[in-house]
């Protein structure tokens, strides 16, 4: 190859990696970025969104405390990611269906799952998964990737039935390496499913950093392979998260097929309470992200508008703490789950073998 040919080829190769749009509306200094998308939130909506975010942060803090006190089982906290979770959800309708991961129990509560169920979920009680009528979602998914193919299927059902409903699902940066991730976005693309796929890029899959997951410069560009749009958002910017998700919802409802959104965020805490993040990341890195915390810029932005103050924030914290305490107590009072009942749940009608096992365990449980 001549030098000239080599350069030509190199240029061609560089072009093959698609650039994706990046959206930010409220920057690190709480200044509105005046190009591209603008916020459409009214002051009332801004306050409602802020209340959600403070609620989410408080739930995280309270859950961590409950975890440390041994009142719940192991917990994957999501401090730092609440905007990525709750500002995206804020753009969805109550009738939209949510497929969460194990780290998305907080948005699932926001979507209608009672707090008591959340506590029971962390404790490993089946009652957690029985969602009240009208809550559109599945319990948190532990297998990484399954929810993406399922969301493609449900989004297709909505499309077939002409429903004003969207399937919405989260995955992590690690999860975007999983085969189901691609199968999900690809199927959704082919069948023009009404699905919004969100990759919460919190920079780590347990200890493995984002750049060890993929050589792709963005995760959003993976959408290009499925022929669907991909877009990257500042995951610490609730205004951008809301705006992009809202438009993605409208886009898919207009019959254009699914959208993939990558949110650039960070998990401040450990992967789970039994994880030690100092083994794989530095204090400097954490500090940098703590400065980017959406809470700082939202307090400033809403404060400057005169629609938010410390008292309002404290009130949400107090209410949430109370809500959490009540949920913990209510979960304490939940009857113990019975093996005989679990056996009843395997099939609609127990098989003869299971019917015998039910009798056996009922006898055991009487004693």
């Amino acid at each position: 190859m001549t030098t000239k040919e080599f350069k030509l080829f190199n240029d061609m190769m560089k072009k093959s990696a698609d650039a994706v749009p990046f959206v930010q509306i409220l920057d690190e200094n709480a200044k509105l970025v005046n190009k591209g998308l603008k916020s459409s939130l009214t002051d009332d909506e801004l306050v409602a969104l802020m209340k959600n975010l403070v609620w989410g942060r408080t739930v995280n803090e309270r859950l961590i405390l409950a975890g440390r006190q041994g009142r719940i089982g192991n917990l994957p906290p999501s401090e730092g990611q609440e905007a990525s979770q709750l500002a995206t959800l804020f753009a969805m309708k109550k009738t939209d269906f949510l497929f969460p991961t194990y780290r998305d129990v907080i948005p699932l509560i926001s979507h209608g799952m009672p707090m008591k169920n959340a506590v029971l979920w962390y404790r490993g009680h089946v009652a957690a998964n029985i969602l009240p009528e009208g809550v559109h979602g599945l319990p948190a998914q532990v297998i990484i990737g399954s929810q993406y193919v399922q969301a493609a299927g449900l989004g297709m059902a909505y499309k077939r039935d002409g429903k004003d409903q969207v399937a919405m699902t989260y995955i992590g940066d690690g999860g975007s390496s999983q085969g189901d991730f691609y199968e999900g976005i690809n199927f959704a693309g082919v069948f023009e499913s009404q699905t919004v796929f969100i990759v919460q890029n919190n920079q780590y899959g347990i200890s493995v950093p984002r750049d060890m997951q993929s050589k792709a410069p963005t995760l959003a560009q993976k959408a290009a392979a499925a022929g669907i749009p991909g877009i990257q958002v500042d995951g610490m910017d609730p205004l951008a998260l809301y705006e992009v998700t809202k438009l993605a919802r409208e886009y898919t409802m207009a019959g254009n097929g699914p959208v993939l959104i990558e949110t650039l965020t960070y998990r401040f805490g450990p992967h789970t309470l039994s994880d030690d993040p100092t083994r794989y990341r530095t204090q400097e890195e954490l500090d940098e992200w703590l400065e980017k915390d959406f809470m700082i810029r939202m307090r400033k932005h809403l404060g400057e508008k005169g629609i938010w103050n410390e008292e309002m924030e404290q009130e949400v914290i107090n209410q949430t703490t109370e809500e959490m305490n009540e949920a913990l107590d209510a979960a304490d009072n939940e009857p113990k789950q019975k093996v005989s009942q679990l056996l009843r749940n395997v099939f609609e009608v127990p098989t003869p073998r299971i019917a015998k096992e039910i009798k056996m365990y009922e006898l055991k449980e009487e004693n």
Partner: protein
Amino acid sequence: MAIKNMVQAINEALTQEMERDERILVFGEDVGTNGGVFRVTDGMSDKLGIDRVFDTPLAESGIMGMAMGLALGGYRPVPEIQFSGFTMEAIDGLLGQLARHRYRMGGTEGVPVTVRSTFGGGVGTPELHSDNLEGLFSQSPGIRIVIPSGPYDAKGLLTASIRNNDPVYFLEHLKLYRSIKEEVPEESYEIPLDKAHVVQEGTDITIVTYGAMVHESKKAIESLEKDGISIELIDLRTVAPFDIDTILASVKKTGRVVVVQEAQRLTGVGNQIMAEIAEGAMYELEASIGRVAAPDSHFPFGQAESVWLPNAKTIEEQVRNTMAE
């Protein structure tokens, strides 16, 4: 009543069910325009619309996940996995997700998905097309594995599977597709799941089997009966969870039993059946439990199939051994 083969019987069951319930969807690789690589869904997309009998991208996990999502949206999907070995690509979807959905939802909702696939030796397919995976998957709670042994059963069992509100893995033996012809009623009918079929009654010994081995057993029985041996033949129909009560009742009557499967000794459901018999009828047995199975290699390359697969002769030998004990 018309004489039909299994392909026609399955096509008829699918078509009639889809005509009855518009929420049923059939999809998979090549099932739409092409009518399936074995023509099982032939003509269905013309009759029912290409939006109800349609092709998917080539991705088994995607197919399984889509089925689950559609079921969550109130549909009754009947996806096809072209060949059983490819189900490996979708085990999470099948066993991790579909099979445990009702359980994880506290019994409040099930996912009515019937996954159809082909399997079975004797037709010389390439690797990983014919593998008997029923034993592997039978170890998962929450899913039924149904294997018809002929056209009549295929239609009735598939109809019952589709109407059932729990997931079913419906396995169609490749060798039976066109080799067995039977009278099959035009109208739709159900054969109950979870019930074994006593194909013929006998008093000396019981053969418990399923799928293609039902026919090999029948051949063996023909020659055994010439020597005055009276054989009770049980076709499991629902292979998992299997109908232990029918098996035990028969074994208690005959006192002798041979369990026959095409799958390797390691897999198949024979192990489980033998354990149940040992547990439930030990003292009524007059001989040890006999077993016919393939050896514990991976499924054989085509040229070795005829030796590897159990057949009427192996069955006959084992029955004679068990009778002699």
